[in-house]
């Protein structure tokens, strides 16, 4: 195994070729570190088996209720938002699968981070030789994977078995869906990271967090697909970052983005992810400066 800390030391100061090796070794070490963090993020949720089972049950029941609501709605307004009824039902079950994966109800790492800021435990995170944002992003990706498998797959399968869904057969479409989900998780993380960091300046970050959480529920399309939002509201909603969380992955899976359109959808998600992560970085360095000077 070449990617080892000591090989970094050996390679130091050598020629160009070995400098490339060095940066590869450093890259390997970074991947390993955040890999362990992500694995930890995944594993910590595996211990709550009963909660997971209860959550799957809730998601499924909830899915059934929303499904019948949508059936009634689409009976009245066929082709609402450009979806036929089976597409609308597919949307319902995808949203149940995505609910926890992109953490639409909030909580998760953000509450934890706010708590660490409040108690001053954040100081411990700062003297570690690891990057705060990457650390929490990795942990959240681990969590998201767990929730996707643990809380997402079952409701979606249930929906597919008992309802007439418009699911694709092309494996490439599924692959594109997974990528869209991944990007959605990153955007969701980046948003919540911003909110959590506000706890450095606001004594009571809970108010902001719940406001953003409600906005997320609405603008992600959890209540109603963003396609069905009328006029300007729809335009705005589809341009906001929250549309990356559910609307885009759902439309990717239903094959509504193809070719350049698919790239455009990914580009939209990537753009928001990069912008929000970038702002998060700025806020993070301001926060670190504050801790380092003001002691929190």
């Amino acid at each position, binding site marked *: 195994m070449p990617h080892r800390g000591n090989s970094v030391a050996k390679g130091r100061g050598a020629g160009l070729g070995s400098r490339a090796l060095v940066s590869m070794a450093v890259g390997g070490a970074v991947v390993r*570190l955040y890999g*362990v963090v992500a694995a930890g993020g995944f*594993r910590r949720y595996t211990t709550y088996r009963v909660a997971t089972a209860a959550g799957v049950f809730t998601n499924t029941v909830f899915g059934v209720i929303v499904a019948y609501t949508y059936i009634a709605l689409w009976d009245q307004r066929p082709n609402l938002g450009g979806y036929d009824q089976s597409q609308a039902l597919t949307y319902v079950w995808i949203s149940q699968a995505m609910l926890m994966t992109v953490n639409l109800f909030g909580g998760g790492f953000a509450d934890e981070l706010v708590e660490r800021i409040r108690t001053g435990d954040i*100081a411990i995170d*700062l*003297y570690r*030789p690891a990057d705060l944002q990457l650390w929490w992003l990795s942990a959240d990706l681990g969590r998201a994977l767990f929730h996707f498998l643990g809380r997402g797959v079952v409701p979606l399968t249930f929906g597919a078995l008992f309802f007439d869904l418009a699911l694709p057969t092309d494996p490439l479409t599924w692959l594109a869906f997974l990528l869209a989900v991944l990007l959605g998780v990153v955007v969701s993380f980046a948003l919540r990271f911003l909110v959590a960091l506000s706890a450095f300046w606001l004594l009571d970050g809970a108010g902001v967090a719940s406001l953003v959480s409600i906005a997320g529920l609405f603008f992600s399309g959890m209540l109603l697909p963003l396609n069905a939002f009328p006029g300007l509201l729809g335009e705005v909603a589809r341009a906001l970052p929250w549309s990356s969380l559910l609307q885009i992955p759902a439309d990717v899976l239903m094959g509504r983005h193809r070719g350049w359109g698919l790239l455009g959808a990914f580009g939209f998600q990537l753009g928001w992810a990069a912008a929000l992560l970038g702002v998060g970085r700025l806020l993070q360095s301001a926060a670190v400066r504050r*801790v380092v000077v003001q002691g929190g």
Partner: protein
Amino acid sequence: MSDLIELDGVEKVFEVRRKTGRLRREKREVRAVDGISFRVPRGEMVGYIGPNGAGKSTTIKMLTGILTPSAGRLRVAGLDPSRERTKLAQRIGVVFGQRTTLWWDLPLYDSYKLAHRMYRIPDARFRENLDRCVELLDLASLLDVPVRQLSLGQRMRGDIAAALLHDPDVLYLDEPTIGLDVISKAKVRQFLRDLNAERATTILLTTHDLTDIEQLCKRVMVIDHGRLMYDGALAGLHEAGESERTLVVDLERELPPVQAEGARVVKVEGPRQWLAFPASASAAPLVAHIAQAYPLVDLSVREPDIEAVIARMYDGRPLY
């Protein structure tokens, strides 16, 4: 030259905003550390003590680089902690008794796996260090237990191990024995003694338990209101604190307080009397005088109580 920790006139001033009225806010300065200078050579184990709010934790935070000093010069292993925090992290280990660095929801071992990757510890080295810590800190049966299920003493031992896997040159311990029972304390102390003896790890330790200091540190620094009140051998604290020894005399019968030069009676209980005299003075002339002038049955000399010395020092002035 081999000083691992160097402080020259280090200060930390916090600005605290306080609400005084509906809208009015008052800015106030808290001088948590107020001009401290000291040096710790490699391999030394130093106690850093002082009353609550003295500035101990603030000093340690500056030494780890998570707080920048407001003034003065600070070097640890030749590095400027707050500027080179990430580099320094490889050279230091930190244990905050009141906080944990461990992964709360996960088995203890996962936190060590993380340290392995975070500090890029070579595999063989990691194994060796972990085995050693597991053995000496009695962690074998705890590795699979989620940290949140550990008792305070177990968690503290787990934290100490986590701080040492990357072979730090310097170890800071901020109240490592807080809340531990006698047996856990003894285990932790023994471990630190061995670590210091075998690896020459430099250790800076804060505590409110003076037994920690008595058993571990030849050198002790006392800080109060952000200033260094004493820096020297533990034994020297007695002189510095103008401490007193106690002569306990048993007389044949109840008598009025004994009259003796250089000593005063502090307590009388039936035929037994307690006399305080300066710790620096010899007991012999005092004993001779009492034996000659009073019907003496028995006597004993009590060494000064270090806690009393320090308590007196805490509300005193600089002692040197």
